[in-house]
């Protein structure tokens, strides 16, 4: 097994010499060490492990090959959601892909904070920022300006397994200031069964990811939220989705 992996690694790096190296160079000032640890972690540990254990069905992964800054919006049922999404990106994009996650949850102890920021590469969101007169989305604005790809869960919380929740409007506020940034809707199913909220032990189940077509900003927050909601519903009801139980 190890030799086969090693050979694949060598062949792949020979085929794509610019791959992760290019990403590293671009981000060297901010995430040099991070990317050097994070990209191999995602490519060689997370991705094979998730595919081996979860029987992932992925529809249209090529829609995630995003050139510039972008926002990926998915429904949220599990901690596995961002890990699975990360594992779908080509290695050359990985240094730029950043899940957006709650600071109060993921930075609550040093070990979790190290995993969340160094290995997963989250952009922490301060959920109480507005009460203190700060912009909770400040980190997201910066990241988009740098050309990063944000993974956002507009439902805001994982909620009950395999149930959709109303979308929160933060993403529309974000887009209002970055109207040219494309939004990719993604529907995930099964992951809420594999690792629901409150469970510590992941259990293998068939899971799926349906990547939708890019949504464009049409000048109004309400319109955008409707566009996003109906895109997610179409993906859920479509041939690659799975209606909620």
């Amino acid at each position, binding site marked *: 097994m190890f030799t086969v992996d090693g050979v694949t690694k060598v062949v792949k790096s020979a085929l794509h010499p610019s791959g992760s190296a290019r990403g590293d160079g671009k981000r060297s000032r901010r995430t040099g060490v991070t990317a050097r640890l994070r990209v191999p972690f995602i490519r060689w540990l997370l991705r094979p492990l998730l595919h081996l254990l979860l*029987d992932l*069905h992925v529809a249209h992964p090529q829609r995630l090959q995003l050139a510039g800054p972008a926002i990926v919006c998915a429904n949220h049922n599990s901690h596995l959601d961002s890990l699975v999404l990360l594992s779908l990106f080509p290695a050359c994009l990985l240094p730029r892909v950043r899940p957006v996650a709650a600071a109060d949850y993921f930075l609550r102890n040093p070990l979790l904070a190290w995993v969340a920021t160094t290995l997963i590469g989250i952009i922490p969101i301060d959920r109480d920022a507005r009460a203190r007169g700060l912009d909770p989305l400040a980190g997201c604005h910066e990241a988009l300006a740098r050309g990063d790809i944000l993974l956002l869960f507009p439902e805001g919380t994982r909620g009950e*397994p395999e149930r959709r929740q109303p979308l929160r409007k933060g993403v529309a506020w974000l887009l209002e200031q970055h109207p040219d940034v494309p939004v990719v809707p993604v529907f995930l199913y*099964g992951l809420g*069964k594999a690792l*629901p909220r409150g*469970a510590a*032990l992941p*259990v*293998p*189940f*068939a899971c799926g990811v349906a990547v939708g077509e890019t949504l464009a900003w049409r000048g109004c927050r309400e319109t955008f939220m409707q566009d996003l909601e109906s895109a997610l519903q179409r993906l859920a009801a479509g041939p690659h989705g799975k209606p909620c139980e």
Partner: protein
Amino acid sequence: MNAPQLTIGVSIALSGMLATLLFASAAQAGLARWQPERVRGELQARIRSWWWIAGAFAFVAMLSREVTIALVAFTSFAALREYFSIIPMRRCDRRVLAWAYAAIPVQFLWAAIGWYGMFMVFIPVCLFLLLPMRTALNGETRGFLHAAGALHWGLMTCVFSLSHAAYLLALPAHVNPAGGNLGLLLYLALLTALNDVAQYCAGKLLGQRKVVPRVSPGKTVEGLLGGIAVTTALATTLAPLLTPFSPIESLGAGLLVALAGFLGDVVVSALKRDLGLKDSGTAIPGHGGVLDRVDSLTMTAPFFFHYLYYLHY
């Protein structure tokens, strides 16, 4: 790591498998060329998947006995995961499902070390008694019988039954100088697979009278008889190359595999029909899910194993 026994018989059978696949691909290509209106994309996907399955099997068989057992164990895991994903399950049973998954490496370990007694009682006795206890400790009694029954049925078909295929590799090798242990597994796999194909083809070509129209409308008496004819013929041809069977015994083995394969297919069809599904999954292009592919093997593996074990071990 035990070196795999590539006897002359096994090499001939593997070459035959390669030739059959080449013939199938050539026939499919010829059909696409000369009668394109009769060609469906599904057939090509199906043959391509057979290439992958046969290729993976041949590859691990060359590597070692342990890797082959690991591949059967993984197939078992994939089938069980698919089963757990399609049946309705209570949320409180997640932990019990984790126990069931954990049983897979243990069961295949008993197979690998050839501990026959433990292999035979681990799932039907130990887990059958222990898992309902764990399910009861969840404290939720509503749907208890369904949960315990569904769990055990899944373990029996996906894990216990399929692990018999792996145990063929742990039987004493000296009994079968012609094919070695690998020969026995190859014999079972080839007969089961070709029986599926022969029943399907005979049914398509000659099928008139339906056997179980409410469960599996595609199954016909003609298909079943065609499958039995092809499989017994193949069983007697391959027996001297791969098994210790006498000609009469091999005739019985062919008949057993043909009937058991048919029944395994029907039982999994009944499960899918109950759940309102056409296929159990999408893991294998052209075939459906893993369960769709191994449905007949869940029945042929234990029956073939015990037939062989009674006669020669």
